[in-house]
């Protein structure tokens, strides 16, 4: 105000009075202090207006600018700030919560109702009031409106009129009490808690869906295992039934046609019975072995042993068979190395790999090479042959129990389908590894490792 007045004095009163008095009026044409931009009737070269309009313009401009500047620079007190906040963000504060702390004050139900009637219509107002009383279990006999009723009314009006108008209308009929700092803090606390709860909920929901996903995959795995077990049992049953069927049929024929059966037939049938009984015995032994190894019930007799000795023992065991088929077994590249293992079990693995090699190499031309190499913390044993090798499709499955390759060179798959599965279990229970080398192209190459020290 003072600044505005000063402007008027300088641009209107002072020059006029000096003109009237006839004293030195150079400053009117030259500007104050001789500065041309400060001419009284043309401040900052604005000399197209009449003297009065010019003074009014500048005094208003200075007035308003200072007003704005000061209100921006000075920090308002909390009531002003709250009000500003409430008017600008009324929705975020009220939300849908009629229990909120926002409104404090008093009003008459009749007044509130009148306002609502006008903007929402009679029917809707009655309905909303009924609902409100029903929710809060109090009859409409209270003359004074509760804060919650006022809140909900304001909310309803907000829907039709917008937040600021609704607040003004309600403000008209209600006498508002000032909102205390504590209440403002409560509001803020409230929103903060809601936000925090919301965040926790979102997180929990995320966790839940993750958990559901985990459960789903666990379930899938169980179903898969169940299926594998079923398949396993089916195959076991089939594998057991075959030799039993054969033994039964041979015995029956021997008994029924005993009288006129030629000697060589009798001999053949008896041999068949013997063969199938052996097969049954091996099969049962294998099943028991595999189950023991799978359940971890097989106790290993771990000792420091010479790998070369164990390999030679296994070769001696299969030597006769190899000679009969004319397959050469080469053991020249076995370094004398010690490892920590159960000799009987590892011997079983070697025998199995060796008989597989014998089975799939050609008679007279077959060659089986055994090697042992010392590596850091472990011994690597390699059994390779010059047979027909392993089909690409088989690499993934050969260590699974009962897997019999479709690509065997014999008409009928040989063996029980247990051999490599047992080898794998044995080597793994020693904390070693066993695999078939897919890069070896001259035949099949099986490799296994054994630790040289406990653990």
């Amino acid at each position, binding site marked *: 105000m003072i600044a505005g007045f000063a402007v008027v004095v300088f641009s209107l009163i002072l020059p006029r009075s000096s003109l009237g008095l006839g004293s030195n009026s150079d400053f009117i044409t030259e500007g104050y202090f001789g500065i041309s931009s400060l001419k009284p009737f043309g401040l900052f070269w604005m000399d197209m207006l009449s003297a009065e309009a010019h003074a009014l313009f500048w005094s208003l401009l200075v007035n308003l600018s200072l007003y704005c500047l000061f209100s921006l620079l000075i920090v308002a007190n909390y009531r002003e700030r709250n009000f500003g906040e409430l008017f600008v963000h009324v929705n975020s504060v009220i939300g849908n919560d009629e229990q909120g702390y926002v409104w404090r004050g008093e009003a008459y139900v009749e007044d509130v109702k009148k306002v609502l009637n006008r903007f929402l219509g009679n029917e809707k107002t009655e309905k909303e009031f009924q609902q409100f009383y029903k929710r809060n279990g109090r009859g409409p006999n209270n003359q004074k409106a509760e804060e919650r009723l006022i809140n909900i009314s304001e909310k309803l009006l907000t829907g039709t009129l917008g937040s600021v108008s609704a607040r003004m209308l309600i403000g008209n009929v209600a006498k508002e009490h000032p909102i205390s700092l504590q209440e403002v803090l409560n509001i803020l606390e409230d929103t903060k808690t809601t936000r925090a709860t919301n965040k926790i909920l979102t997180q929990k929901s995320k966790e839940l869906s993750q958990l559901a996903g985990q459960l789903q995959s666990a379930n899938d795995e169980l179903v898969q295992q169940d299926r594998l077990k079923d398949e396993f049992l*089916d195959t076991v*049953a*089939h594998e057991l*039934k*075959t030799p*039993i*069927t*054969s033994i*039964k*049929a*041979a015995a*029956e*024929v021997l008994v*029924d*046609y005993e009288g006129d059966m030629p000697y060589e*037939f009798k001999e*053949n*049938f008896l041999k*068949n019975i013997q*063969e*199938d009984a052996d097969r049954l015995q091996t099969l049962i032994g294998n099943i028991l072995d595999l189950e023991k190894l799978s359940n971890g019930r097989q106790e290993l007799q771990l000792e420091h042993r010479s790998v070369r000795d164990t390999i030679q023992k296994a070769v001696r065991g299969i030597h006769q068979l190899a000679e009969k088929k004319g397959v050469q077994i080469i053991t020249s590249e076995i370094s004398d190395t010690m490892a920590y293992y159960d000799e009987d079990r590892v011997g079983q693995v070697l025998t199995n790999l060796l008989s597989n090699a014998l089975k799939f190499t050609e008679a007279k031309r077959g060659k089986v090479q055994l090697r042992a190499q010392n590596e850091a913390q472990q011994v690597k044993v390699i059994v390779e042959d010059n047979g027909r090798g392993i089909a690409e499709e088989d690499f993934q499955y050969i260590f699974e129990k009962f897997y019999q390759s*479709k690509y*065997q060179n014999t*008409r*009928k*798959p040989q063996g029980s389908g247990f051999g490599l599965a047992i080898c794998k279990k044995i080597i793994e229970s020693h904390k070693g590894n066993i695999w078939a080398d897919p890069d070896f192209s001259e035949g099949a190459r099986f490799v296994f490792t054994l630790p040289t020290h406990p653990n």
Partner: protein
Amino acid sequence: MENPKAEHKILIVDDEPNIVMALEYAFKKSNFEVFIARDGEEALQIAESVLPDLVLLDIMMPNVDGYQTLKKIKENEQMQHTKVVFLSAKNKHSDIQKGLDMGADKYLTKPFTVKKIIEEVKEII
């Protein structure tokens, strides 16, 4: 293998030679002319040339299995009257139903008694 007194031709298909041996002996003694195949592929070749009255067919065999063999036999017009009997260790209800649905005349399970098999086969023919 020719038997002048033979009443019927039977083709036994199984990949277990010991089982086949017993069945072969018993069927021959019962006046059948017996042919042997060790898998589905061989079975189809023999069946097409000898046109047996009945095929005794295992299911779980390498290469061409029993189901495929049955299908091929049924498709062959020359074997319209050839009976097919499954003889399998698969004895679940669903397996048996599947075999019969595919058009087998009978489904027998392993282990079996030779006498029973011969009786069943005679009855079907």
